[in-house]
Structure formats: C-alpha cells, structure tokens
C-alpha cells in the first residue's frame, strides 16, 4: 500500500511520455475510426483495408497537391465508449483535419457531439439515416440510407402486387435500423408488415420465427442482417419448405453469403450497392469506372472480394481528396468544400452534398439483384 503513489505516478508519467506525438507538416492527417474487431468487424475490416489501399495509391501517385496523406486508424470494437476515446485522441493528439468512420450508426451518434464541438469534419461510414437527418454542420456520410434499400424491395413488391410481408431482423444496430425503416416506409408503398420477428446475431436456428411466418398471411419474407444469420435463415426456409419469395438486405451482398448459404441461396433477391455487379453494369453507368477500379485493386491487395462496406471508406477518402484538391487544408475549409461536392461517382453511388443534404445519394445507389446458380443477376 505504501508504494501505491510512486507506482501510480510512474504509470501516469509513462503514459504521458508515451503519448507525445510528432507532427510533420508536409502531410495531411486523416483520422479513421473503424470497428476492425468486435461484432461489427464485417464492416470495419473491409473499411480499413479499403481506406489504407486508396490512401497508399494516392500517395504513390504523389499525394494531393504535393502533400502526402497520412491515415491514422483506430479500432473501436463496435463500442461507443472506445469510439469517443479514439475520436478525442485523433482530434486532440494526432490533430487530424478530418475523420472517416465510425463503422456503425451507434458509434457515429456517439462521436457526433465530439466532432461538432471540436469542429472537425466527420464522414461516417454507417447507414443510419439519423446521422445526417437532421443535418449537422460537421457530419457527412457515405453509406446509403437503409431506407433506400428498403424502397428498392418495396418497389419490386409493388410491381409484383405483393402487399403483405413478414420481416425478420437481427437484433443489432444493422438489423434494428433496417427494421425501423421497413416499418416506416411500408405505409407509403401500401405494404403491410404482418409479422415482425427478430433473431440474435449469434443464433444458430431461426425455424421458430420462420414457422410463425409460415403460419401467417405473409406473401414475402424480408430478412435484414449480416453474415452468418441470413445464411441460417436461407437454410431454414428451405428446410421448412417455405415457398414465399425471400429478400435479404444489402448486409449480405457479398460472395461470402452465397458460400455460407450454399444451395439455399438460389432465388434470393436483395438490394445491393453496384460493387458486386460492376462487371455486368451497362457501359453508360457513371459509376462503372470507379467500381471496376475498386474491385480490381481490392482483389490485388487483399486477395479477397471487395464489398460495398469497404466502398464506404473508399468513397470517404476520395471525397476528402476532392475537397483538398479544391484547395482546402483546414478542417473548416474541408467541411465547406465537402458540402460543395457534386456528382462524384463513387462506389456507393453518385454523391452530391449540399447545405441541406449531407447524405448525398439518390435512390439509384442501389440495384436489386437475384442469386442464380451462385452468382448475381440484375433484376430489371
């Protein structure tokens, strides 16, 4: 007990000295908060990979206006507390001019008060519409609002004259946002949610929920989640012999889902960013060039398929690059320039920010795809 004070003080001093950072003026520091580990690592990992990749590329080509970009990534583990701590560190110690991320809506909402107070632009990679609605001065986002994905499905249902749906959503941030949007948009499309069920992120059997759905009036099933849950749902649907059309969310628009669901994936439809169908897009598509470049680079760098989550980070870096190219180098100037972004064709869609819109995407950001023979096909 006697020695606690020296020990404590020593610890503090050590931390203090360890945390003194060096600043080099020839670079532009960009901070990034991604949930590289923890439950949302399916978002954070491709985001970090993509951000690093594109920053390296930019630097290899000589940087932006002669200045190199320096990307500082902190892992937030999906935890709001860690996200806020890391945001503070980026702003106050690393002195970054802008922050990319965080990966999830919850973490983004946690970080917003910090960046708003400190006056640092934030480009969130999370989808929740409340991030930019209402518009906050310093906050932008690249991920498409979940509502847009919902609208894609509902439009299709309208076309097929299916009015009653059952929704099955995962009880995490992604699923609960989807569930909110599914219910919020239903009325507008004349659709009725007749069953509203959820499942846990680590659940291994959803037959109970699906049995309930089977016993209902539902004409279609919409499942909102990220791997591996939806694959289990797909298999369970097949097991129970349910013949209703099954829709997934953009949360599983990667080959991984097809691998996990196997044969059960056949016939499933989902709204997706254009990444996965970049090669079959019509030549006139404005995004096609960006998409093809992203997919090719990601494959080269990481020997893995790039997905649209990584695309969010790619877009964010490119948007920042654009702002810096237009002459901005302080946080305030970058914010102003970001807001002036128009018609930037990125991975997630075509971005046009304005003072009234910090989400910047129209509904053409999504396409509806169907899985046939373990591959994607565009649903016209």
């Amino acid at each position, binding site marked *: 007990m006697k020695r606690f004070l020296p020990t404590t003080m020593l610890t503090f001093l050590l931390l203090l000295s360890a945390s003194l950072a060096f600043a080099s003026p020839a670079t532009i520091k960009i901070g990034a908060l991604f949930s590289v*580990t923890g439950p949302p690592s399916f978002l954070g990992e491709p985001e970090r990979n993509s951000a690093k990749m594109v920053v390296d590329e930019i630097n290899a080509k000589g940087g932006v206006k002669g200045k190199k970009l320096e990307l500082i990534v902190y892992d937030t583990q999906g935890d709001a507390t860690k996200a806020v701590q890391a945001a503070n560190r980026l702003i106050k110690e690393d002195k970054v001019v802008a922050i990319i991320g965080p990966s999830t809506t919850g973490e983004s909402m946690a970080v917003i008060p910090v960046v708003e107070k400190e006056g640092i632009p934030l480009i969130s990679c999370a989808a929740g519409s409340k991030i930019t609605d209402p518009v906050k001065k310093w906050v932008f986002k690249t991920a498409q609002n979940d509502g847009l994905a919902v609208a894609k499905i509902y439009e299709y249902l309208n076309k097929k004259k299916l009015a009653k749906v059952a929704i099955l959503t995962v009880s995490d941030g992604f699923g609960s946002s989807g569930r909110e949007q599914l219910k919020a948009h239903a009325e507008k499309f004349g659709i009725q949610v007749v069953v509203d069920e959820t499942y846990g992120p680590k659940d*291994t059997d959803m037959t109970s929920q699906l049995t309930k759905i089977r016993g209902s009036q539902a004409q279609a099933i919409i499942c909102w989640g990220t791997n591996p849950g939806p694959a289990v749902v797909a298999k369970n649907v097949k097991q129970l012999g349910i013949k209703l059309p099954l829709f997934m969310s953009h949360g599983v628009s990667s080959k991984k889902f097809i691998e996990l669901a196997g044969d059960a994936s056949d016939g499933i439809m989902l709204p997706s960013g254009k990444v996965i169908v970049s090669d079959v897009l019509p030549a006139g598509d404005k995004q096609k060039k960006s998409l093809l470049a992203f997919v090719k680079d990601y494959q080269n760098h990481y020997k893995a398929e790039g997905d649209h989550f990584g695309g969010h980070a790619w877009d964010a870096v490119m948007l920042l690059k654009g702002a810096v190219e237009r002459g901005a180098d302080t946080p305030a100037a970058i914010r102003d320039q970001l807001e002036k972004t128009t018609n930037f064709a990125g991975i997630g869609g075509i971005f046009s920010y304005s003072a009234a819109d910090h989400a910047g995407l129209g509904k053409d950001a999504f396409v509806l795809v169907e899985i046939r023979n373990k591959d994607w096909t565009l649903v016209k």
Partner: protein
Amino acid sequence: MELADQIAQYLVSGLSTGAIYALIGIGFAIIYNSTDIINFAQGELVMLGGMFTLFSLNVLHLPLPLAILFAVAAATAVGVLFERLTIRPLKSPTPLALIIITIGGSILIRGITMMIGGKDTHAIPAFSGSEPILIGTATILPQHLWIFALTALAITANKLFFEYTITGKAMRACAVNRRAAGLVGIDVKRMVLFSFAISSALGSLAGIIVAPLTMTSYDVGIMLGLKGFCAAIIGGLSGGIGTVLGGLLLGVLESLGAGLISSGYKDAIAFIILLLILFIRPQGLFTKAQTERV
C-alpha cells in the same frame, strides 16, 4: 397453417437446438464433476472443433472422417495444454482465480484463432446432405440426427466410463474429496488433466457436429458455451441424462418463447430460466436435493 402444426415444429426445432446445448453442456459437467472447475473456456473448445475441421478440410484437404479425427486431436491438445500451463501451476486454486483464468483462457484462445484464421464465418458441409426429413408436419435436417446420435453416445460412454472403469471411478473420487483421493493413492493432477482431455475432446466433437448448422467462426464459442452451461446447470451439472434433459428443455422453451412470446427476448427467457433454477433448485431440476453440509 394450424397452430398445432406450428407448435409441433417449435417442439422439433427446440429439441434439435436443445440437443446441441446438451452436447456442449456435458463437457462442462465432466470437468466440473471431476475437478469442481467451471471451465469458461469450454465454449472455445467447441469453436476450435469447428475451426480445426475447417482447417483440415480446406488446407490439409483431408476427407471428412480424417478431418474430424484431426480436429478432435488438435482441440484436445489445446485443452490439455491449457490445463498444464495455467490450471496446474496455480498455487491457490480458489473459485475466483479459476473463473478469471478460464475466462482469460477463452479470450486468449479466441484471440489466437482470430489472428490465425481471420474473422470470417465459414460453412462446413453437412455430413449427409441437407434434404429435410419430415416428422409429421414438422421438419428437421439429417445433421440433427447426427447430433441426437452423438449425444446419446456421449452420455452412454460417459456413464460406462465413470461407473465401470478404474480411471473413471478415480476421477469421481477426486471430485468428492480431492485430498482423500490423493491419500488413497490416486494421482489427482493426472485425473484433472484427464478430465480436461475428455471434455476438450467431447467439446470439440460437439463443435464439429454442430458446425454444418451453426457455421463456424472464431467467435461462435461464446454464446454456444453459455447456452451449454445453462443446460448443464438446469440438469444439475450431471454428466448424464440430467444435462441432456436440461439442454432439451432449454431448447424447447427458447423455441416456444421465440414462436409464441417474443423472438427478441428469447435469450432473455433462457437466462431467466437459468436464474430461477439457480434460485429455487440450485441442485438442478432432475437431481434429488442433498443435505447441505457445512
């Protein structure tokens, strides 16, 4: 569809999920019964079973039976190593120290698996196809039959081992009174090691056999471990039929809870049952109360 048909499906689904919990729960019970340790890392051994199988299928390109053998051996080695390196050297094995160490172990195993194997989820092919089997109006998958069979096999083997072999009896003696067991010449440390080996093997086998249904990734062990533990508690931590009944009951209640009450709160239902049982019948539902001695 009629409500009765729905309930039939809930029951069948519940039983098949419950069998998974039971199989995992038995692993907990074995260690507890011979060492008085609740191994919080047991769930990770379940995970390792799946991951090692994946490794031997995809990297070593072994046929499935060999892959299973390899995975069980590898996971058992991990369990034994864990015991040798962390539990055995412990000077004062208080329950608190053991809880912390096994939690630390589970974090460590999970972390290392993530580092080596990555964060992706992977599918493992079903042992005998995935054509659903009809039971009345309800359906299950062939893999569920494997699980039921293995569970039955596990409790039978367990029973035979602990009742009829010298080693098994010695392990039971250690649980009843470690010092006395030592005095009559039983190598207590060896028995502890044995029980870790057996439960690791069983845990990983459980992990392998459920993997085609649950898929596998570095973090599947947490929830499966917890549910398995619930099953074991409901069954009074018995290595036999009690835990199996506990697991089945848990599965059925979860499934009915999800179907009839609320799917969002189904895990909460499982844990509320756990708490109630701990409060009312801490000796488990299926064992007779023993006179409490100080």
